[in-house]
């Protein structure tokens, strides 16, 4: 069951990700990205990380992507023009793409030579309680530093927007 769902949602994630790049209209791209976020949340869930899955949906799909959609709506960003591309370009780009993917997989292979296989249902520390325990005892410093990061983000956002308004 888990394996079927994994392949289904992994496929949705990959197809949506490709769609983000392929679509001409920014709204279509943004919504495909929401699809990627949603299927990633399901993948987290399959691995047992419930809280991360929910956070993924709330923060990425529910907040950051809303911001994207908002900006597209506000700026009236239209569909992009398709660039003229000949077959030569495609012929050169395809091998490069294959080369790039090969390189990335090689690096991952070398970087984690003894990575254990993922087993569904093995990880059980993903509930909100476990996350809370880890976050507020062992990882307290990163948590507190996050607030500074958020503060910087507030200042950055307000400064940028103020410039726009004046």
């Amino acid at each position, binding site marked *: *069951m*888990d394996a079927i*769902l994994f392949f289904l949602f992994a496929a949705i994630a990959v197809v949506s990700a490709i769609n983000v790049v392929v679509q001409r209209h920014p709204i279509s791209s943004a919504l495909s990205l929401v699809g990627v976020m949603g299927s990633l949340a399901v993948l987290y*869930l*399959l691995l*047992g990380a*419930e*809280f991360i899955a929910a*956070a993924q949906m*709330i*923060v990425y799909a*529910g*907040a*950051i992507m*809303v*911001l994207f959609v*908002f*900006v597209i*709506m*506000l*700026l*009236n960003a*239209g569909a992009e023009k398709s660039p003229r591309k000949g077959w030569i370009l495609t012929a050169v780009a395809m091998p490069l793409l294959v080369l790039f993917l090969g390189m990335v997989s090689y690096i991952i292979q070398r970087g984690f030579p003894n990575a254990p296989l993922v087993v*569904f*249902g093995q990880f059980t520390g*993903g*509930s*909100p*309680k476990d*996350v*809370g*325990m880890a*976050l*507020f005892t062992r990882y*307290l410093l990163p*948590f*507190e530093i*996050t*607030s*500074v990061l*958020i*503060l910087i*983000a*507030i*200042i950055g*956002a*307000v400064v940028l*927007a*103020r410039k*726009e*308004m004046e």
Partner: protein
Amino acid sequence: MPEGYLPIFVFMVVALLFPVVAIVAAKLVRPSSPFATKLEAYECGIKAASSSRGRYTVRFYIVAILFVIFDVETIFLYPWAVRYQSLGWFGVAEVTVFLVILVVGYVWAYKKGALQWV
């Protein structure tokens, strides 16, 4: 997958099918006699002078970006709230530090007028 999600998924599939079926069913039984005037944008009656695709105020953008920022803060408070009773005063101290830094940011943004609509 953790326990309990399967019924939710099935229910979500039903919830997805319901509007699809309703809208398709409506398509099958409804009459359809469109003509040019009927299909125009709903306006005051005179032909629309400009496209609706204009640019709108930056306020909406500020609201959205502040929402993203504070939403991240809020989501951090949930694991804390769940674990609160076993953390005790230590938990209070942790979140006080976290919130004070953010309240400073909020007050600053408020003073700058970023939260003012007009």
